[in-house]
């Protein structure tokens, strides 16, 4: 992994302000040249279940962090609740880290996965 250039907080700001804002792209879809994936691989942000944070709280966090509409946020929340985990985003490693950081700011447990891990 390349060393960070900016601190996590400074890097997270544009991410949160712009999440889901690009026309034509859902928040968990990123338009990237194939070469980018070839170098960095597609990474998945996976949220794990915890017995503490309420369903309403998790829905709110998904809407806030990823810009999901409520039905989509609720679908991911239910997946976390019923299956123990939900893949909420996939794309480049660096941006996946930013999302994981944002989720941890909200005290959710998130892990990053790539195909190589399985």
């Amino acid at each position, binding site marked *: 992994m390349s060393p960070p250039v900016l*601190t996590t907080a400074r890097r997270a700001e544009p991410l949160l302000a712009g999440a889901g804002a690009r026309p034509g792209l859902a928040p968990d879809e990123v338009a990237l040249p194939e070469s980018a994936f070839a170098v960095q691989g597609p990474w998945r942000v996976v949220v794990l279940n915890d017995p503490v944070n309420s369903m309403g709280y998790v829905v709110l966090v998904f809407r806030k962090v990823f810009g999901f509409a409520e039905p989509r946020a609720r679908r991911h929340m239910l997946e976390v609740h019923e299956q123990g985990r939900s893949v909420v985003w996939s794309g480049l490693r660096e941006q996946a880290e930013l999302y994981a950081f944002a989720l941890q700011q909200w005290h959710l447990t998130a892990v990053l996965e790539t195909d190589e891990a399985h």
Partner: protein
Amino acid sequence: MKRIEVKLSLPVVAPLLDLMKASSDVLEAQIAAPITLDDIDADFREDWRAELLGGQQEELHALMGLFNSDFFINGVVAFDEDNAEIIVRACSALRLRLRRHDLDILEDEQLESGGVDIERLPAALQKPFMCYVFLGTIQELIIQHLDTAILRGPAGESGPAEDDDEGAGDFDLDKD
């Protein structure tokens, strides 16, 4: 600006504040939810941890700041667009701490289903559990009434302009 005021029962809430403060003090130096990214660069990980901790400290100071001398006079705490997000997050951090440290003998299923009879809990668990429920109730109130403010972000931050003047709300959680 939308604002809600919640009237709390001082005899019920005041005894919980010592435990909330003690848990908050522990979280001055400890991330409430574990950092799970084992394979990130060590320096980056430390920066990451420090920033998460700084944010968490700010949240907890805001939450504990609600219970100031005015609170002990009128029993009222107020939530608005400026503090809604930070308070909701602080409640989450404290609930995680209470669950892992004070309520660790309870099963996940018990907590998730809400199927805990406080009267049947051992005495040592009753206060932590009341605290846990109290913080969850605060979260629910804020999410129910100020979620659009949280989604929009603090005043001045860019975002869709939604209903901005919904008036004040008053709630009474006084159980006496």
